[in-house]
């Protein structure tokens, strides 16, 4: 009896695939046993104890696939190696025919690029621990990367982006939620027309809000390049922000540029200011959470996403919108309450950038908010104070899709906030577009109605901003109408919604005092 151990480095496979490989190899003539496993220490020990050569096994790591084979003769093992190569390349007999094979799609970067050699961008959405490895393979192949995966280490991000910069490629991400390239949306993106405004963003919902605000003003987007939220950290040093800005500076279709990011490191912001000042095209910047600085050496630092979009729209030749049409909502007063008591605001956001924007606007209106340092649950009392919560934060999304897709957690918190009679104003966002929930408004309304019903007549004002374009698949106008019919105040941006909510709060307090 002959034995053979094959180690396929970095070839991670899910359980179904491992089982398929085991079964198909075991079916090869002359093979008595075939086992495909990941190369963990325990598996290596087990295989060694089962009589497979320990020296070969020692080469494997938990990231590698180990195939252990027993056959009647060395010749049979040779044919198994050929079959294994075919299987892993997706050309095994079982994988090469039938509708299941057609629907399977590529399993590795190599397979994907063999199928589409013309593509020069690889979109990577695999679990975080594997993502850097896959992205490196794409860079090896000379392709830029849209890295949707999260849970990629900072060290891996720095290494990937240094390599990309050296190769003249882009790594958009990790945790890059949004990009729009020549009108094609990647990740979560809104369907906007092509136009003269280029966007670089270290913030997915920041890009979405800007592109929708431009869309509401009839202005399109040339390209929106996401960079991942850590790009402007000291470690990453704005590597892909700078690369994206350079691309837009050279792009003839782009006549002006918007940059959006959360809290850049001071040293990075200083360095990027020089890049922006020399860009050669009008540029407006929105650093979320920071106050307006106006024009600084030709770079416009806006105080809100609305202001940044307005500036770019003006550069692109759009007429300024009359103030009355910038807010879709009509309600300005909270319903009266004859009873006395505390009154406070709770913001429950799906978009982290929109939460940051709302906090900034609320503070400007004198409403101080806190981000709870504990995760809110439907079963525990709310912490005190005016609260702003990003339900897209990692703590709320363990094992769940993002709240833009699955509203379960946010809806449970809407009901929990409603059950707290001291909460009088609820501030929400609703992000539409490709990748987002197909019809989110009815579920939000349903839960607001349930929350209000549990308050024994005590009113609850709800203001919601809608981030959606005219062509989004959910129907932005229809979503807004459903919200209005449910008794929610609707605003066309997170900043306007926060302003409305801030205006409602004193009115509520006055009513309470009376």
């Amino acid at each position, binding site marked *: 009896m002959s034995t053979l151990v094959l180690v396929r480095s970095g070839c991670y496979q899910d*359980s179904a695939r*491992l089982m398929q490989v085991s079964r198909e190899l075991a079916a090869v003539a002359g093979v008595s*046993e075939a086992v495909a496993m990941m190369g*963990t*220490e325990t598996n290596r020990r087990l295989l060694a104890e089962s009589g497979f050569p320990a020296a070969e096994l020692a080469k494997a790591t938990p990231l590698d696939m180990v195939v252990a084979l027993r056959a009647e003769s060395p010749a049979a093992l040779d044919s198994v190696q050929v079959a294994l190569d075919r299987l892993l390349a997706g050309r095994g007999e079982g994988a090469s025919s039938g509708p299941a094979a057609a629907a399977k799609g590529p399993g590795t970067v190599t397979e994907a690029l063999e199928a589409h050699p013309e593509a020069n961008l690889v979109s990577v959405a*695999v679990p975080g621990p594997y993502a850097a490895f896959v992205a490196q393979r794409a860079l090896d192949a000379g392709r830029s990367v849209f890295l949707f995966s999260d849970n990629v280490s900072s060290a891996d991000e720095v290494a990937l982006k240094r390599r990309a910069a050296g190769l003249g490629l882009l790594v958009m991400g990790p945790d890059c939620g949004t990009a729009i390239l020549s009108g094609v949306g990647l990740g979560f993106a809104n369907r906007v027309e092509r136009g003269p405004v280029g966007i670089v963003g270290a913030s997915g919902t920041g890009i979405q809000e800007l592109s929708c605000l431009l869309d509401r003003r009839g202005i399109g987007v040339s390209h929106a390049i996401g960079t991942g939220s850590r790009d402007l950290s000291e470690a990453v040093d704005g590597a892909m922000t700078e690369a994206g800005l350079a*691309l837009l500076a050279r*792009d003839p279709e782009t006549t002006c540029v918007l940059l959006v990011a959360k809290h850049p490191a001071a040293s990075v912001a200083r360095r990027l200011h020089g890049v922006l000042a020399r860009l050669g095209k009008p540029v407006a910047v929105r650093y979320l959470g920071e106050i307006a600085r106006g024009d600084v050496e030709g770079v416009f630092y806006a105080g809100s996403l609305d202001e940044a979009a307005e500036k770019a729209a003006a550069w692109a030749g759009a007429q300024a919108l009359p103030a009355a049409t910038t807010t879709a909502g009509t309600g300005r007063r909270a319903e009266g309450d004859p009873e006395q008591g505390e009154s406070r605001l709770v913001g429950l956001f799906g978009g982290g950038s929109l939460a940051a924007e709302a906090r900034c606007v609320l503070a400007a209106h004198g409403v101080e908010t806190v981000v709870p340092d504990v995760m809110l649950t439907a079963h525990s009392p709310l912490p005190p104070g005016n609260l702003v919560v990003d339900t897209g934060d990692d703590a709320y999304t363990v*094992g769940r899709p993002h709240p833009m897709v699955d509203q379960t957690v946010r809806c449970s918190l809407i009901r929990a906030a409603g059950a707290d009679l001291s909460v009088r104003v609820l501030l929400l966002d609703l992000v539409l577009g490709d990748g987002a929930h197909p019809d989110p408004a009815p579920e939000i309304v349903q839960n607001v109605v349930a929350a209000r019903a549990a308050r024994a007549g005590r009113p609850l004002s709800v203001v919601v901003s809608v981030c959606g374009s005219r062509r989004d698949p959910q129907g932005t106008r229809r979503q807004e109408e459903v919200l209005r019919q449910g008794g929610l105040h609707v605003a066309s941006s997170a900043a306007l919604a926060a302003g409305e909510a801030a205006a409602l709060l004193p009115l509520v307090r006055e009513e309470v005092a009376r």
Partner: protein
Amino acid sequence: MRASEITTFLDAAALQVRARTPLPCRELDPQPGPVSRASLVLDLACIFLPARSRALLSGQGGEPGSVEEAVVKWANARVDALVGTLLSGDVRVASYRSDAAALTGLGPGLTPTGDDLLVGLAAMSQRLVGGGLVEARAAVAFSTVLAGLPAGETTPAAQRLLQNAARGVFPSALASVVEMIGNPNADPESLQTLTVGLASVGAHSGADLLAGALALVNGVVDGKKSR
């Protein structure tokens, strides 16, 4: 990239590498309903048991002398030991370490069988704490061991599953079954449906998770106390 290539680059269709999304996970319901030993006996009698789970619970499976047979025997012995330690109420973390370490990374799968068994065991131990059938501090000691298992000894996907389990977050399909087992008010047909759903997760991950959970139920029903 050269400036002239920007349009070419940006016009290119995105190429989506097949996404392998993690299993949906959640915490167990903090109030999952009552649990009694009598109901556990009834549930064990009627629950759907895939052949894979049966093999792991009995320690018998695979061709004689095969690697599969070795996996099943090894896993069964270690799980049996852990069940004994848990039901003896042992609160010392060290008492669980060697058996848990012997299971992590064991067997086929992107989340190897041994890791799935550990997670199933952890979920059920948390459930049975609610019914007073497992000592709460023993369950905590076991979870502590899961959190401390060396990252390099199993696959990254399994490491994440273990870390989640250590803080009480489990695959949703497992959590739904675990919450219903032993509840005298539960509908047996619903339990059956949920169990079939769990068994269909992955090639055999679901069956392995189920085996881990049922190993502890077996231990309680058999009145196992210690090794």
